[in-house]
């Protein structure tokens, strides 16, 4: 089964154009086709200047996120028939909260900078060259959900607080901070908690849950932010008890 679908695509080249504009393409779409497949066809047959990111086509690399009818989606995992509704129309736009480099390609640098700030790797004072650091199966289980993150930026785009406060660390960085704090092999927990226990850290989140809603890997960054708050509060409670108890 196939259908004629109208694709309305955001086009913008900040180097030569003052304002973005939208171009529509009518396409015959098969029911199995993903939005990315159609974009590939448009680029090949109609508009070779159309710019978008893609790599794995399997929902693994996290490079193809864009807004599909206003919602952050992995283009390679979004079936056209699932998003057209009754209007038979698909609007494709770049992610929110990022500067557009060209068409659907955005500058992800602020997102990755914030990830780097919280040191997303294990911090260990002594690393043995010939032996693995053991981790209990329970600890692996507790972290599993957060390990699924493919650093696609969808949550960062969906967060209204990032939009109003560009300094806010954002859901992905905070989720990674929580994940590393959960890791029993890590020795940087106190340092990270100090970092996120700040105005631009986990207290800035206003529980809109947009991040959790759009995450293509069901990571649930909002629950991680809540977990961070609980860790910080228990740490404060311990300090407080030590002082007055």
């Amino acid at each position, binding site marked *: 089964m196939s259908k004629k679908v109208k694709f*309305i695509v*955001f086009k913008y080249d900040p180097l030569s154009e003052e304002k*973005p*504009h*939208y*171009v*529509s*393409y*009518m396409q015959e779409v098969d029911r199995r086709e993903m939005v990315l497949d159609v974009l590939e066809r448009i680029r090949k047959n*109609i*508009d070779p200047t159309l710019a978008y990111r893609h790599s794995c086509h399997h929902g693994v690399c996290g490079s193809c996120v864009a*807004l599909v*009818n*206003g*919602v952050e989606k992995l283009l390679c995992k979004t079936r056209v028939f699932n998003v057209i509704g009754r209007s038979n129309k698909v*609007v494709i*736009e*770049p992610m*929110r*909260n*990022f*500067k557009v480099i060209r068409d659907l390609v955005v500058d992800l640098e602020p997102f990755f900078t914030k990830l780097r700030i919280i040191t997303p790797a294990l911090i260990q004072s002594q690393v043995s060259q010939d032996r693995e650091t053991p981790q209990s199966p329970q600890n692996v289980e507790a972290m599993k959900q957060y390990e699924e993150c493919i650093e696609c930026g969808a949550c960062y785009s*969906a967060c*209204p607080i990032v*939009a*109003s*406060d*560009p300094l806010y660390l954002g859901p992905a960085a905070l989720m990674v901070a929580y994940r590393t704090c959960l890791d029993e092999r890590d020795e940087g927990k106190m340092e990270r908690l100090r970092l996120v226990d700040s105005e631009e850290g986990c207290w800035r989140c*206003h*529980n*809109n*849950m*947009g991040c*959790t*809603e759009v995450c293509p890997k069901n990571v649930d960054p*909002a*629950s991680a932010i*809540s*977990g961070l*708050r*609980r860790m910080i*509060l228990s740490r404060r409670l311990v300090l407080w008890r030590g002082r007055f108890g």
Partner: protein
Amino acid sequence: MVKEEKQSHPVKLSSIRAWFDFKRKYINNWLFMLHRFTGVALTIYLILHVKTVSLLTEGKEIYNTSIKEFETFGWLIVLFLIIIIGIFHGLNGIRLFLYQFSFGVKHQRTLSITVITLTAIATVLVAYILFI
């Protein structure tokens, strides 16, 4: 077929307008937006309330005549709305408070639906008390 299209484009970088994006159609976003609208409404009410009560400092007579102006059906509807808004804001506030401290994280949807259901029940009850 290729055609130029007219379309408003996504919310700009660092814009408070992003807080009120009706394209995000999920329950927590509706509650998030409503919480802000009701917060502003309650603040306005509070200011008006304090202003009215402060008339007492100008004497009993003045206060009584001004308060009489509020005894209309129109103001009764405003009062009704304020009570509902207050109830919603309070209930949603409790949900947010619990969430802030990591309680019920896995039951967010249920909690959000509970807030909406309780507000709906309260609306019917308050309407019954005020108007029937």
